[in-house]
C-alpha cells in the first residue's frame, strides 16, 4: 500500500498546470461561450499534445490508455483552469468506441481523438450533449445501444456559459452495445474536474479575503470568514482520496462516491466563494463567475447526487466483504 501519486504523475499534473496557467483561459472561455471556437481549439490541441486524450485511448489505436489515475490528475488541472469543451465526453467516447465488439468504428474514429484532431461528444440517455456544434464525433447512447448521431439541434445555454448544450438528432448508424464502463470514466473525470474547480475557487477566495480590507483589517482575519474557508478545505481534502481510490479500482460504487463527494465539495466551495467575494462575485464580468457556474453544472452532469448515492447503496458493505 502506497496511496500517493508517483513523482511522474505529480510532474504530469504540474506541467499541465503550468501550461494552462499562462493560457489566459478566462478569455478562451468567454470566446467559447459565444461560439467562437478558434482559441479553444488551439488550447484543445495543446491539451492533446500533452497526452491527455491518449490516456483514454488504447495503444492499439495510437493511445496509451486507459490510465484512470493519470486521467484524474489531468482533469483536476483542466478543472482548475476551467478549460472549455467536451473533455469528459471525449474520454467517455474513446472508452465506448474501444469497447465495441466491432473494431471498425474505433479504427476509424479513435486516432483522431487521441491526437486532438477531433473532439467527441456524447449524450447518454440524456436530452443534451455538450458542444455538439463543435464535436466532429457525436455519439448517442439509447436503449438500443450506441449510435453515431447524424447531426445536432440548436444550442441551449447552460448556467455555465462555457457549456453549450445541444440536442443530438435521433437515429444514425448503430455501432453496437454501450457497456457501463464508459460511464465510470465519464464520472471519474467529471469528479476530477470538479475537484480542480473547487480548488481554484478556494485559492481565489483565499487570495481575495487576504487582499480585501474592511474595518481597517484584512477580512481574512475574521473568524466567520476563516471557518467557512476551513470547511471548504476539509470538503476538498476528503474528496481527493475518494477520487484517486476510485481511479485505482474503477468500481462503479467507488466512482459514484467520488463523483458525488467531489461535486458537492466543489459546489460548497462555490457558495462560499460567492459569499466571501460579496457583490463582485455575483457579476458575470468578474472571472470568478466562470468557476462558480461550472461547479453548479458539474453537480448534475454524468450522474446527479441522488443517482450516485443509489450506486453506493447498491454495492456490498464496507468491511463485510473486505472490498473496502
Amino acid at each position, binding site marked *: *500500500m*502506497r*496511496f*500517493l*501519486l*508517483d513523482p511522474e*504523475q505529480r510532474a504530469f499534473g504540474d506541467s499541465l498546470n503550468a501550461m494552462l496557467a499562462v493560457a489566459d483561459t478566462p478569455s478562451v472561455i468567454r470566446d467559447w461561450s459565444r461560439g467562437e471556437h478558434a482559441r479553444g481549439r488551439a488550447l484543445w490541441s495543446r491539451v492533446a499534445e500533452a497526452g491527455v486524450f491518449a490516456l483514454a485511448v488504447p495503444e492499439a489505436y495510437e493511445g496509451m490508455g486507459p490510465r484512470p*489515475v493519470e486521467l484524474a490528475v489531468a482533469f483536476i488541472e483542466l478543472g482548475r483552469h476551467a478549460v472549455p469543451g467536451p473533455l469528459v465526453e471525449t474520454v467517455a467516447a474513446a472508452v465506448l468506441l474501444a469497447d465495441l465488439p466491432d473494431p471498425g468504428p474505433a479504427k476509424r474514429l479513435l486516432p483522431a481523438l487521441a491526437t486532438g484532431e477531433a473532439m467527441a461528444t456524447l449524450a447518454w440517455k440524456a436530452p443534451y450533449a455538450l458542444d455538439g456544434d463543435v464535436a466532429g464525433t457525436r455519439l448517442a447512447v439509447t436503449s438500443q445501444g450506441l449510435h453515431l448521431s447524424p447531426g445536432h439541434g440548436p444550442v441551449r445555454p447552460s448556467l455555465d456559459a462555457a457549456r453549450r448544450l445541444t440536442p443530438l438528432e435521433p437515429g444514425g448508424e448503430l455501432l453496437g452495445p454501450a457497456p457501463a464502463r464508459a460511464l465510470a470514466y465519464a464520472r471519474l473525470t467529471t469528479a476530477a474536474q470538479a475537484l480542480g474547480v473547487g480548488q481554484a475557487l*478556494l485559492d481565489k477566495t*483565499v487570495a481575495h*479575503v*487576504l487582499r480585501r480590507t474592511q474595518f481597517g*483589517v*484584512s477580512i*481574512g*482575519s*475574521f*473568524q466567520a*470568514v*476563516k*471557518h467557512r*474557508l*476551513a*470547511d471548504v*478545505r*476539509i470538503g476538498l*481534502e*476528503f*474528496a*481527493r*482520496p*475518494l477520487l*484517486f*481510490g476510485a481511479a*485505482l*479500482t474503477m468500481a462503479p460504487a*467507488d466512482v459514484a*462516491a467520488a463523483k*458525488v*463527494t467531489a461535486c458537492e465539495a466543489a459546489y460548497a466551495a462555490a457558495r462560499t466563494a460567492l459569499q466571501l467575494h460579496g457583490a463582485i462575485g455575483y457579476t458575470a464580468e468578474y472571472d470568478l463567475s466562470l468557476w462558480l457556474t461550472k461547479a453548479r453544472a458539474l453537480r448534475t452532469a454524468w450522474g446527479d*447526487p*441522488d443517482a450516485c*448515492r*443509489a450506486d*453506493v*447503496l447498491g454495492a456490498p*458493505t*464496507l*468491511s*463485510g466483504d473486505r472490498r*473496502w
Partner: protein
Amino acid sequence: MDLAHSAADEAFRAEARAWLRAHVPVDPLPSLETEEGFAAHRAWEAELAVDRWSVVNWPAAYGGRDATLVRWLLFEEEYYAAGAPGRVNQNGVSLLAPTLFDHGTEEQRARVLPPMATGEVVWAQAWSEPEAGSDLASLRSRATRVAGGWLLSGQKTWSSRAAFADRAFGLFRSDPGAPKPHQGLTYLMFDLRASGVTVRPIARLDGRPAIAELFLDEVFVPDEDVIGEPGQGWRIAMSTAGNERGLMLRSPGRFLASADRLHRLWQDRGSPESARNSVADALIGARAYQLFTFAAASRFLDGESIGPESSLNKVFWSEYDIALHETALDLLGAEGELADTEWAERYVFSLAGPIYAGTNEIQRDIIAERLLGLPKGRR
C-alpha cells in the same frame, strides 16, 4: 500509487481476524462508563494483552508486536468489524504512550508501558481546568518544587475516565514567573489515589460518570514521574499532538464498522427513502476517511510530518460520527430515545467529539491560519 496490501500485511490481518473471532465476547460488555463495565473492559484488555493484541504498534519489549502504521490500521479495521469492545485505556495508549516514546526515559517506559498494555493501570487525562479550556496555556494548577519531587495543587476538570481510572497525566505550572503562558509548564504523571487527590465524577448527558473533576491539594509526585525537562511541558505535549497521534486517535476501522452497522439498520427498517442520503453519506464518509488516512500514512512512512493536517482529520471524524448516529436514532423511530441501547450510548459519546481534543473551532482556526495562510485575528 497502490492500495493493495502486501502478503505479509494480509497475513497479519488474517491472524488478527482469527484471534478476534475466537475471543470477542458474544454479548456486548456493560457500558464502559459504569463501575461494572469499567472492570469488564479492563479484563478484556488483559485478555488482549495475553496474546499481544492490546498495543500492536508498540515494541515487543512493552507488550506489542512492532506493527507498522499500516498493520495498526488493518488491525483496527478487523477489531471494529468484529464488534470488539471499546478501549478503556485509549487515553494512555494514544496520548501518554507516544509522549513517553518520544520524551520519556527508558526507566519510565519500562515501568509505565507494560501495565498500560495489560489494563492493569488505566490512565485518565488531566488537561483542562475550569478557566483553561481552548486556551489551555492559561492553566493555573501548580507544581511546586520540593525535595525529591513536586507538590501538585489546583483543579483539573473534564478528565475523561478519571472516575474509575488509576493514574493521570497532564500539564502543571511549575514557573509562575515565566514571561509567556505556555512557558514554565511541566508534564507530570500522578496517582489518582494518592493522598491529597479528590475525584468528583461528573455525569455526562446520559447520566453516566464518563468524566470527572480532580481537586489536588499538595499531592506529592516523585521526580521519576516528570516527563522531559521541567518547564518544557507545553512543547512536549504539543510535539506529539500533530504527528501520528492525529492519525491514531480515531482509526478508520471504527467508522467503517459503524457505517456498515448503520447500513444494516437501514435495511432492517425497510430501507426508508427519508434516510437514504444520510446512509449513503455515512458509507462514503467512512471510505473517504479510510483513504485519507492511507494517504497520510503513506506520507508519514515517507518521512513527512503530518502537522496541522491532523486538524482536518479531527473536524471530519467528529462531525461525521455525530451525523451517523443521528441517522441511526432517526431510523429507530420511537425507540430512538431509549437510553439503554448501544446506538444511544454511541450517540451520546459522539456528541463530545467536536469538543474534546481541541474544539472544532480551534481546529478550524488552525486550518485557516496554518494551512490556508490567513492572518491571526481576534478569536
